[in-house]
């Protein structure tokens, strides 16, 4: 419940309680006082009537009595009635007019001594205070009767009501006053207190951006300003704390990262150090520049020489070094190490069991806590030494074999050359002699029979030359003695050259050659291609259908990145089975065919050797053959 509500509620309750209590008290007091006054006035009137009625009673002058009571009743407007009784109790006069209320006689009588007696009566006219006073003196035996006066209590009720009204008005006024006070308190105190409370609560919840709105001036405004200033200070302090915390966190993070990095580095170092298969020694350097005590060694370093780690850490490098290095060499190594260089040198270590282990040492000087240390990574090069020895032996053997091969190569080359010479020379001599014969025949008479013999012999010799050329060419190609060139050549001219070379035979056979050879330049080997087209044209001539006549068409076109030569004849053609075998070595289409059976083998070797392809197309026996040679324009010579 809000403070404002508590204050207002409590104050209203107190005001109402106080007002009610005050009204109650005033009403009782006033009632008592008014009743006393009414009693006194009633007794006074009754006694006045009693004193003035003595004579009339004694004289039984009822008229006077009646005038007396009527006159007395009219004195005070609140006198309700007056009546007189005689000593026997009979009513002598009264002010009720025609109807006297008999019951009234019993409700009150004078005191035994004749003194006044007051009774409070509740009637239909309201409260009536009935006063009874004796007439005469009872003690002296002169009791004449009694006077009864009834006074309406209306004045008392009106007085009490007035008091109640006034009290209620005062209470309401007090409540209004309180409301005003409460409003003032609310404006001046409660709201500020609440604002302070809200600010404190917000502050307690950590809201440092909360600010109290300052109203006017005074203590609360100062308090609010002080609160805001305090919040500002806290905010600034918190900002500083946040900054400090951020800095601290960053430092902690950096430090943690550094520590983690260092730890990982150490772990990696430990793993590396322990798992490296090379022996690693860290050793001190003496003041004299000599290798000192070993301060660290990895597992490989221990197993390398057969010592335990504890043993190794009590030794110096000199104790495991089996080389007979003099002081000058050691000094040189140390001097190079002092320049910061990594020094690599070979050494020999002595194992615990006396083994001598050749090692390659990779050493570097570094500073460890202010002391010069050397880390030496030692690789067992026993295998390398053995391998080097083996390699030397192998090289020597290889050189010897190479010499043998060179010798064999020379022998082979010489053999091929000799064979070539021995095979070609007789044929050449035959050709020469035949030429002489033809000359003689021309001079001395050339009979048809001689001419035929000469022609047959010339044809036979040409075929022999072709066969020998092919066989030797195959031998050279297979031996690799002849590489392929990649020269810029005019392919059309190569083909034309072949046709020109065969022109005598073509003319003799009556074969027509139609060509479509546009200029095409490619990168290839003209000499080898001459052999290809020579063989193809030779076959086209050889396998004509008839001994005389025939037609051969040779074309050259560019297809993609290849120059394609097609040589189409109208010869005997090839079956599918023959097409599959034409490139086989020593295969001949007909047993009677004259030739070596290697011409097309050579053709394929050459064409593929210059990066091209060759194939034959034929629809079957009697349909002729088309030889298709595709050659890369840019050259595609195979590398060895």
């Amino acid at each position, binding site marked *: 419940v809000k403070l404002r509500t508590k204050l207002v509620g409590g104050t209203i309750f107190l005001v109402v309680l106080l007002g009610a209590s005050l009204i109650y008290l005033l009403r009782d007091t006033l009632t008592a006082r008014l009743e006393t006054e009414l009693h006194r006035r009633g007794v006074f009137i009754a006694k006045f009537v009693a004193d003035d009625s003595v004579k009339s009673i004694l004289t039984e002058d009822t008229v006077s009595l009646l005038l007396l009571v009527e006159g007395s009743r009219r004195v005070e407007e609140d006198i309700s009635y007056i009546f007189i009784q005689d000593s026997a109790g009979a009513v002598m006069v009264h002010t009720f007019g025609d109807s006297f209320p008999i019951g009234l006689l019993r409700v009150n009588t004078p005191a035994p001594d004749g003194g006044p007696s007051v009774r409070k009566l509740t009637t239909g006219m309201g409260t009536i205070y009935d006063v009874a006073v004796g007439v005469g003196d009872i003690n002296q035996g002169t009791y004449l009767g009694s006077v009864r006066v009834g006074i309406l209590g209306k004045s008392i009720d009106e007085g009490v009501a007035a008091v109640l009204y006034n009290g209620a008005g005062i209470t309401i006024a007090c409540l209004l006053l309180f409301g005003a006070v409460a409003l003032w308190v609310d404006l001046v105190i409660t709201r500020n207190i609440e604002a302070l409370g809200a600010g404190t609560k917000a502050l307690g919840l950590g809201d440092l951006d909360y600010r109290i709105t300052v109203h006017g001036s005074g203590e609360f405004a100062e308090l609010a300003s002080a609160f805001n200033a305090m919040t500002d200070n806290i905010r600034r302090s918190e900002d500083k704390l946040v900054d400090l915390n951020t800095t601290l966190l960053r430092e902690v993070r950096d430090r943690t990262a550094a520590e983690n990095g260092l730890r990982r580095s150490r772990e990696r170092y430990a793993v590396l150090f322990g798992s490296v298969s090379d022996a690693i020694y860290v050793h001190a350097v003496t003041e004299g520049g000599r290798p000192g005590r070993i301060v660290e060694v990895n597992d490989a370093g221990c197993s390398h020489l057969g010592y335990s780690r504890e043993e190794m850490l009590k030794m110096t490098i000199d104790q495991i070094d089996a080389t007979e290095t003099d002081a000058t060499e050691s000094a040189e190594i140390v001097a190079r190490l002092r320049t910061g260089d990594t020094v690599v040198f070979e050494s020999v270590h002595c194992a615990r069991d006396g083994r001598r282990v050749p090692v390659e040492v990779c050493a570097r000087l570094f500073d460890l806590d202010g002391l010069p240390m050397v880390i030496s990574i030692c690789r067992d090069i026993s295998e390398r030494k053995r391998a080097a020895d083996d390699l030397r032996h192998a090289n020597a053997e290889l050189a010897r074999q190479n010499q043998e091969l060179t010798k064999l190569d020379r022998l082979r080359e010489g053999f091929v*050359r000799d064979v*070539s*010479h021995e095979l*070609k*020379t007789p*044929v*050449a*001599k*035959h*050709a*020469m*002699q035949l*030429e*002489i014969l033809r*000359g003689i025949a021309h001079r001395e008479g050339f009979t048809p029979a001689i001419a035929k013999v000469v022609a047959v012999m010339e044809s036979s*010799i040409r075929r022999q*030359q072709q066969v020998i050329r092919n066989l*030797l060419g195959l031998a*050279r190609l297979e031996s690799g003695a*002849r590489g392929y060139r990649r020269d810029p050549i005019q392919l059309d001219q190569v083909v034309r050259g072949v046709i020109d070379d065969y022109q005598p035979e073509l003319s003799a056979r009556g074969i027509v050659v139609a060509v479509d050879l546009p200029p095409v330049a490619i990168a290839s080997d003209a000499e080898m291609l001459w052999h290809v087209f020579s063989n193809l044209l030779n076959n086209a001539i050889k396998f004509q259908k008839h001994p005389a006549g025939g037609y051969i068409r040779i074309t050259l076109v560019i297809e993609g990145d290849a120059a394609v030569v097609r040589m189409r004849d109208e010869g005997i053609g090839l079956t599918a089975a023959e097409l599959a075998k034409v490139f086989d070595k020593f295969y001949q289409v007909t047993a009677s065919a004259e030739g070596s059976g290697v011409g097309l083998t050579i053709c394929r070797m050459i064409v593929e050797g210059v990066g091209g392809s060759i194939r034959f197309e034929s629809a079957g026996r009697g349909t002729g053959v088309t030889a298709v040679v595709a050659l890369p324009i840019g050259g595609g010579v195979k590398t060895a």
Partner: protein
Amino acid sequence: MKTLLIVEDDTDIQDYYQILLSGLGVRILCAYTGKQGLTFVDAGEEIDLILLDIVLPEMGGEEFFQELRIVRQASTRVIVCSVDEKLIEPLRRIGPVQGTFLKGDPGSTLVAMIKEQLSL
């Protein structure tokens, strides 16, 4: 008269050359080995053209050509005659060759080359 030296060990082929060249009106010297051929050269003969075989006894055509071109620095014109064109290649690496004749090819080819070299 132009002088032509034939270095050829085969007498049949020598005869062939002589028959072939008989109509050209040149003086023909014949050597059977490379060494004999060099003898003619060293003897100061005015040789205008040499027909050089390659496969020869004592001193082959290649060695003869080397002696001629490299040792003696002679620029005498040489037509190499061989049954195998492969045998000619080593000579080309030694020095310039004015012509090659494959034995067995028509003799008219050789005659034409000789005429050209001797400006006949």
